[in-house]
């Protein structure tokens, strides 16, 4: 096993199939067209808080630097406001690519343990799946419990304010036909996993770059 010298990236660390995997998702086909112009980062309101800019993330995805990408803070900071996607001169749907990266990071459990954003996403998911609806205050409470539970105390004023204004329901919302929803979601489990191939064609076989 090579010892890593400084910040050099070895070929063995790259996951070549990663770029193709992302590219094959419906809507993310234009990944290769990126000319690294930086428009996305320029318009992204959250880019100034990110460790890697959206442009860098796209570049890294293309280069197969999977680990770096999935461990970044950037993918969680994306608020999916779509500003990048509508201005990209190559019409790359960057927001949808960010969603793909979030999903993969969650699936592979690559995120700091008590990081609120993926925890919130998963709790939201659980609640929506099981009850069919989401009760915001309960969701927030669960999120705090599972992450930085002490910061819930900082929210007491907000919580009280909501209670006083009648915006704090004291019951859990749910749909009548919860079973129906569960059955619907089960059919998806029986089909392929999350990665779907563009236009239902045969799965794209990743070609090694340079053999075109």
């Amino acid at each position, binding site marked *: 096993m090579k010892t890593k010298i400084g910040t050099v990236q070895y070929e063995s660390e790259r996951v070549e199939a990663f770029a193709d995997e992302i590219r094959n998702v419906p809507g993310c086909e234009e990944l290769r067209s990126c000319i690294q112009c930086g428009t996305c980062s320029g318009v992204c309101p959250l880019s100034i808080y990110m460790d890697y800019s959206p442009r860098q993330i796209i570049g890294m995805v293309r280069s197969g630097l999977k680990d770096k990408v999935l461990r970044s803070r950037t993918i969680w900071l994306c608020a*999916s406001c779509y*500003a990048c996607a509508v201005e990209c001169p190559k019409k790359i749907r960057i927001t949808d690519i960010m969603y793909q990266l979030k999903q993969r990071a969650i699936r592979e459990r690559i995120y700091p343990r008590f990081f609120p*954003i993926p925890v*919130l996403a998963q709790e939201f998911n659980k609640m929506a799946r099981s009850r069919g609806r989401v*009760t915001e205050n309960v969701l927030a409470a669960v999120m705090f419990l599972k992450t930085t539970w002490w910061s819930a105390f900082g929210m007491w004023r907000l919580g009280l*304010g909501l209670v006083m204004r009648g915006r704090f329901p004291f019951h859990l*919302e749910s749909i009548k036909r919860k079973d129906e929803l569960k059955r619907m979601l089960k059919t*998806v489990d029986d*089909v392929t996993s999350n990665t*779907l191939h563009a236009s239902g064609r045969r799965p794209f076989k990743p070609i090694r770059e340079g053999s075109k």
Partner: protein
Amino acid sequence: MTTYSYFPGCSLKGTGRAYEESLLPVLRALDVELEELDDWNCCGATAYMAVDEVRACVIASRNLALAERTGHKELIAPCNACYLVLNKTEHYMRESPSVNGVIQNALKEAGLASSGNLPVRHPLDVLVNTVGLDAVRRRVRRSLKGLKVAPYYGCQIVRPYSTFDDQFNPTTMDRLLEALGCTVVTFPLKTRCCGGSLTGTLPEAGLHCSHVILKEALRRGADVIATVCPLCQFNLDSYHDKIAAKWGATRIPTVYFTQLMGLAFGMNERELGLHRGFIPMKPLETSSPE
């Protein structure tokens, strides 16, 4: 009397109650009835997509199928996130046969089907483009003259699908507010993201997004910010103390555009849910109802 299918979304039943409280009577005053979709389920918003995009589309599609079954021609979704997710699901259904296949399969399990062609519209679109500004103007009983409003659309209503307005500089709400007599201030941040759910999970980033919007609205001389999305309203309205602590006070009320409409229509503050906001609006100059 026109009736539309109505998808409230989880927020409008929870923290965003005031939106529904003001939307329904305002539409009723304009001869539009909304019929809440029976047994609607959560659309998934941005959170579900972060975990599983296909399943997010599947649960969203259930609502589309239920709506199609009612026979009403269109589905109204006031929350920006719901509006986006439902439209996005329909786009996937139309553009990607493989995703559509999975969705139809899942719907079949519930005895449902969806064509992927049901128009999902925002009440702003319906009010200005279908009901029409003339009808709105006729219904105004008390002009909001002198009230300076900053129109804030948020991101998901114009991006990525701009079905009824310009993506970069939308004016639907501006025109609506002007029809009510308000003075609409020039607001360059009208479609800038408010931070979304980050205000709760990563406040140093999310709250700052909200803060800049509030600050600029004040700088432009607005008395109030009008929103179309419950999360935007929550973010801009509920965190003033935290924002003040970090970057200085920017106290300006944020209300739903339907609440302003209700005021203009002569309805009282309480029935419009204006007491539910954190920063109250200054009392309007008393002008005799027309």
